[in-house]
């Protein structure tokens, strides 16, 4: 129990000491903030200017509308792609027809599967 108390108290003291090491800096900053903030004020003005292009970037989001337009266009593209995709399976089919006939398309095996061909 006393061990736990000591540990807890020690942890608080340690955290406090660590905070005190860092705390004077913010306090100093606080005391120095009025002039520092005043000095920093112009860059802050500059910052919004920098931010303005960032805002402009979202305006470029207007092109995103264009993107949505392109999204609208996309359905058109699949339409164009559909024949392409339809054509693509066609090529494997050709390959499939070629392979059973060992390279001869529309061979007798394909045309007359039931017929027994003489050797």
């Amino acid at each position, binding site marked *: *129990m006393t061990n*736990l*108390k000591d540990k*807890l*108290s020690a*942890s*608080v003291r340690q*955290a406090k000491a660590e*905070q005190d090491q860092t*705390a004077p800096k913010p306090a100093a900053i606080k005391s120095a903030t009025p002039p520092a903030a005043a000095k920093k004020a112009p860059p802050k003005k500059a910052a919004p200017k920098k931010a303005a292009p960032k805002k402009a970037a979202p305006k470029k989001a207007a092109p995103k509308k264009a993107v949505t337009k392109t999204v609208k266009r996309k359905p058109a593209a699949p339409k164009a792609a559909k024949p392409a995709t339809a054509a693509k399976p066609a090529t494997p089919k050709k390959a499939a027809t070629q392979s059973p006939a060992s390279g001869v398309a529309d061979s007798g095996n394909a045309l007359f599967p039931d017929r027994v061909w003489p050797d």
Partner: protein
Amino acid sequence: MATHIIAVINQKGGAGKTTVAMNLAAGLARRDDTLVLDLDPQASSRQWASLGSAPFPATVKQINGKWDAKTLHQNYKAYRHLVLDCPPSLESHASLQALRACDVALIPVLPSPIDLWASLRLPGEIEEARKTNKRLRAFLVLNQLEPKSALSAAMHDAIAEFGIPVLETGIRRRAIYRSAALEGVSVYQMGGRGALAAAEIEAIINEVIAS
């Protein structure tokens, strides 16, 4: 008679600020007109009061925008007690103004080392606030104590490291506090089930008022 202002404050979230503020206000409302000002954007106090089938004993309002100690005293002078439920941030306008305006800062702390470490900035902030608010008194109150827990028992010694007086009364971990919140009432309105909790709150009020 001047309005007596109690700020329930801690930068750590989940320390029980709203629970303490609402039940404290309910206890104070048994004595005089009492207002809870919900300064937390999460608006938990307002939400709590809006849930009840029975009216909450104290009036609960939310403040938005900028305000200061003067406007607080002017606008709410009709109330004898003002309980400020502060947001979990010491940097916020609301917390800083609350410390400048209040007579008592009540700081709920959970019996956990993490909560202790997270609350270490408070003594400094209170010292800072005392430069403009000479009458400010601060008290730590241990919340959610578990009597059988060795850690809870060890807290009283560890918390002394803060250099802020600790209320003798601690608040025990009781389901009734959560049940009261769910029903939108205070522990005083929970009948026999809330009797022990209500006794704790009464003891805290007596300590704070007598101090």
